[in-house]
């Protein structure tokens, strides 16, 4: 009945304008099923605006956006609701409902979309989602104000995964985390993506994240996606921003870290 198409996200000719500031113009992007796509770009290139357009929070001036086979740009409300139960979104700060506990936050989408699920099963679902997101069991009944930044992100992820979505949107998931926490969060996303067979749309500034978990990277610059491909493919292009981004000191550090990790795991296998 609702099979996931091979291209779950398709953006064509997107244009976004704020006042007379043109953020996007003629932007095209296709996300393939089951991949983790990283979206990078300088500050102010409209990465978050792109994500907000795709999930329907921002109505674009022009262009077509298709998510899971149905159009977002001219969706009717009832159609919209079906799509919304098939994606999960993690906002930058977690955006948890501050008057609810972590578990109650996870239960919100379940209550909304599947009111027929009884309390007992819903509580069980909330509890295991909390653990799956890498939170300790005692975080279940805590309020967001009692959590650290990293735990808030994990709680936000638990809520994003509440309905077992096919699509997961992450807005800078590792920003503000310490390097160990960020690496752990990367691994968590990768593990969940493989287990739950997710397609992940990930906005990030974190080069380690790009090297570690992203299958492809889309580069936003000059109001559009200037390139989209694996990191070696991007490195072969000679766009100045891309070269500076991946070959700057931080880019090289992340690259050599990846190579070291790769070599270490090869040795372990051997």
């Amino acid at each position, binding site marked *: 009945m609702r099979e996931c198409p091979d291209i779950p996200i398709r953006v064509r000719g997107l244009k976004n304008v704020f006042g007379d500031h043109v953020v996007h113009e003629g932007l095209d992007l296709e996300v393939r099923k089951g991949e983790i796509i990283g979206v990078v770009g300088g500050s102010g290139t409209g990465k978050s605006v792109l994500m907000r357009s795709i999930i329907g929070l921002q109505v674009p001036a022009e262009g077509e956006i298709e998510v899971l086979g149905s159009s977002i740009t001219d969706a009717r409300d009832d159609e919209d609701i079906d799509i919304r139960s098939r994606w999960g979104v993690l906002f930058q700060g977690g955006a948890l409902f501050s008057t609810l506990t972590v578990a*109650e936050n996870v239960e919100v989408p379940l209550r909304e979309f599947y009111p027929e*699920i009884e309390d007992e099963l819903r509580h*069980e*679902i909330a509890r295991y989602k909390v653990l799956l997101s890498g939170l300790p069991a005692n975080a279940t009944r805590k*309020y967001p*104000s009692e959590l650290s930044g990293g735990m808030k992100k994990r709680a936000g992820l638990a809520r994003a995964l509440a309905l077992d979505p096919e699509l997961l949107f992450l807005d800078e998931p590792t920003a503000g985390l310490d390097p160990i926490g960020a690496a752990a969060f990367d691994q968590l996303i990768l593990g969940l993506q493989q*287990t*739950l067979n997710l397609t992940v749309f990930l906005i990030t500034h974190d080069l380690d994240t790009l090297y570690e978990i992203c299958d492809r990277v889309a580069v936003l610059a000059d109001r559009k996606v200037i390139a989209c491909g694996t990191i070696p493919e991007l490195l072969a292009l000679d766009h100045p921003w891309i070269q500076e981004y991946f070959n700057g000191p931080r880019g090289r550090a992340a690259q050599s870290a990846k190579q070291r990790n790769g070599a270490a795991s090869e040795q372990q296998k051997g």
Partner: protein
Amino acid sequence: MRALTDFTIASDEAASGDGGGATLAFSGPMTVASLGPIDARIRDVPAPLARIDMTGVTRIDTVGAWVAWRVAQRTGARIVNCKPEAERLIAAVSQADDNREPVAGERLPLFSRVPARVGETIIGLGRGTLQVLGFLGLYVQACWALLRRPSTFRTKALVHQMELVGVNALGIIALMSFLVGIVIAQQGAVQLRQFGAEIYTVNLVGRLTLRELGILMTAIMVAGRSGSAFAAQLGTMKLTEEVDAMRTIGVSPMEALVIPRILATMIMMPLLGIYSAFLGIVGGAFLSSLTLGIPFFTFLARIQEVVPLHDVWVGLVKGPVFGLIVAVSGCYQGLQVRNNAEEVGTRTTAAVVMAIFMVIVLDAFFAVFFTEIGWG
């Protein structure tokens, strides 16, 4: 119509080679969308079972995996004939099943919650009074520090707040006062007509608006407009750590946020009060000229004769005091916000309620006081 999960239980003798016993066979999709209605039936499946057969499962997500895993744990069954996807998901949820924490925050049962709330409220009232006094002390201290270093005074912020509190309120206060003036004149005239004393409508409108109603209604309106705005602004700034950021930069929130707001309200309140009284009188004069046959300008001229000057002073003296109360309760409640967005709401409500309540209590006190000193 969504397809639902289904299951059958069979005591399969043919499979006795496999140990015999009952087999529970799931079929259809096992997802969050299809399990809700039949979860209760699955819970009632009698233990023990030997096997859970997943052959007929078309699609599965973590909720389906969880339900299968839970039945298996409870009945001691083995899960068989899984597709690789189901196996992967069941393995994932089985790692995550040792969470026994309650889902909701702690709540006391009703019979102990009610007395607890009463006690908390009473203790909170006492503590709140002390804290407001402490806040007033801080305010006075900050004002003193400002007097010694007047160059740090934020004139721009003060003027901006005066605009928000005073100038922007002119329209709504004018409308309100004008209408109340009309109502007083009309109702007063109806009663006074019984004694043939309609001319005293002028005294009624003039003295009532200048002494009491002008400033009281203004205080209530400012509490609703600006007191609530102060509480919500400062509360949100507390939540987004703006107040903390100010402190670390060396800017005192008291100086930058609280003093301009309180001063602006204290300056604007008497002005708005007298403005409101004048418009009340205009309203009264307007109605009198229409229905009582007292010409508009005669009414205004009579006001000067029948209203003693000390009535104007009574109104003006109350202004800054009411302004202080409204602004202090708004700022104090705003800065008490700690945890979440809900608190911004409750604190804003508390600020307005506290301000209006205190204004009315003090107004009663002023009424008695001014009469006693001969300004009746």
